[in-house]
């Protein structure tokens, strides 16, 4: 069996499992899993840039927030229905990512991290500055009545779960396909050895820009879906912490693997959920995880699996 085929079967298996999980899990975990699936889309978007292209951004919250506010403001101020509002969220994320990408990619390494951090910080402050419209840190609620897509009430837990699952499935299969295309392979080549890739004739700058833009778009779709499904948009989602979280999820799950982002998001979500019952200082868990990961498992859970047992893991 070819590795591409194994990967495909794995992805379908994961999706089947997530489908079944809805009927097996109690309501509390259904709700959690819906949230995790949406956030895993964010993680997959982040992983496309960090895991596959090798670019570490510390500012992805600005893309997540662009999608969230693109949809949120279109509904909140423009009175749009969910479908065009979602499109508005995607366009907002695409534009923000395209512009930031073309500027930030003029730098490399540590400077790239700081530049993305700075742009995201400027985005966060901009949301606060226009508090009249965005309601700043407090945020705004998208009313229950408006959150119906093609006749499906997205506030209903069942509809919400499957909406999240559909989005997740589309993005997972897309990523699974993308990393096997010539373009996806060239991203991996850039991650492994940028100069060599350039001297094989690959347009490295262009490929990186496409990666940033695509990654930002996926992150924005996650943000838009989050606002739509959970009915809230707030500036917290644009803060540094939301740039750090996808890095954590991807590192934990396994950078440069298709299922790593999901694994990492589930793991960290429950770890933080558990910790926040014990202490208000629950982000301590994130801190410890970061340090332990860099020290002992820089390739994450799926990365370790690939190294030890399943070399075909995509």
């Amino acid at each position: 069996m070819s590795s591409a085929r194994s990967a495909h079967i794995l992805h379908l298996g994961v999706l089947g499992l997530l489908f079944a999980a809805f009927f097996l899990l109690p309501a509390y975990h259904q709700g959690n899993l819906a949230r995790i699936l949406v956030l895993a889309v964010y993680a997959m978007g982040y992983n496309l840039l960090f895991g596959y292209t090798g670019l570490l951004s510390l500012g992805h919250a600005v893309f997540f927030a662009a999608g969230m506010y693109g949809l949120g403001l279109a509904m909140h101020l423009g009175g749009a229905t969910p479908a065009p509002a979602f499109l508005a969220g995607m366009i907002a994320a695409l534009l923000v990512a395209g512009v930031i990408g073309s500027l930030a990619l003029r730098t490399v390494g540590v400077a790239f991290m700081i530049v993305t951090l700075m742009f995201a910080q400027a985005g966060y402050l901009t949301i606060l500055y226009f508090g009249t419209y965005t309601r700043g840190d407090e945020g705004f609620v998208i009313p229950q009545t408006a959150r119906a897509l093609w006749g499906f009430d997205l506030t209903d837990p069942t509809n919400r779960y499957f909406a999240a699952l559909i989005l997740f499935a589309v993005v997972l299969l897309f990523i699974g396909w993308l990393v096997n295309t010539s373009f996806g392979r060239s991203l991996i080549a850039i991650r492994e050895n940028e100069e060599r890739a350039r001297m094989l004739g690959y347009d490295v700058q262009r490929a990186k820009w496409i990666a940033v833009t695509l990654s930002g778009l996926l992150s924005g779709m996650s943000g838009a879906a989050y606002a739509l499904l959970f009915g809230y948009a707030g500036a917290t989602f644009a803060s540094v912490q939301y740039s750090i979280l996808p890095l954590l999820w991807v590192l934990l799950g396994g950078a440069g693997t298709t299922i790593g982002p999901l694994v990492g998001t589930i793991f960290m979500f429950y770890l933080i959920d558990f910790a926040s019952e014990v202490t208000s200082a629950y982000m301590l868990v994130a801190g410890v995880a970061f340090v332990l990961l860099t020290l002992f498992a820089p390739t994450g859970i799926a990365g370790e699996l690939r190294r030890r047992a399943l070399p075909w893991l995509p």
Partner: protein
Amino acid sequence: MDLGPYLLLASLEGAITASILALTAVGLSLVFGVMRVVNVAHGEFFMLGAVASWFVATYLGTHPAIGFIAALLIAPLLVGALAATADWLVLRRINYDPERTIVATIGLLYILQQGTLMTFGPDARPVEPPFNQRLAIPWPSFEGGFHLTWPWGLGTTSYKLFIIAAAITILFGLWVLMSRTKIGLIMRATQLDRDMAQAFGIPVERVYALVFGLGAGLAALAAVLIVPVQQAHYLMGGDPLLLSFIVVIIGGLGSLPGTVIAAVLIGLSDGIISVFFSPTLAKILATLLVALVLVFRPQGLLGKRIA
């Protein structure tokens, strides 16, 4: 108050910001310069300095001046030692790989910040200044012949002036340390060429731990100075970190004189800009400016382009 006295007051506040910023940013710059790593947890060392200062002052419980002097000595040493330990246990073991170091120091950031939340609590706590005389500042007036007026509200305190003087003294001390002592020579040698330094028998790993500790200690020292004006809080590390980043980038990564000049520039303009703009807008412009400096002039506004 007229604009003139108002601007003077803003410049004075700006000078205090600049002093604290210079100390903090020089710490960050030193670490970047010698070790070529970005310490994202730098703001938390600042915060720890303030918190340690509160603990020392509270548990000594004597005259504020004694508590302050004790804090001035103990807090930076404690924080520096903690940082050096973190360097030894974590950064050294990942071989100072730039990306992994950033991830690890993000982890350190959360550990320190949340650890403080668990022990120190979520409240902001004041520390009493050792001395605090109010000083009114005269303003020249030419209406009806030259004379000095004393505009209401135009004034400062002896402690605030002390902060500025202390920062200048410490920076001078650091300059002497770096340029006139053997340990400074060793640090500069390590900065220039790590492998060569190693070949000449310099214990590079220990120098790194020392530099990391020194950088954190400087941030802690800055915090001890500012905490009587600002209060200690577990989330107070965010702003100094961001501002230090800005300063270090504008000043040219790793250049100490550039860092000090940029700190004065940013500190003063931060105070003066916020007179005219809302602080949020000022911050947006500042962050964008820094991002664009890094994009288009990565050597910093004051640095020279390396051929």
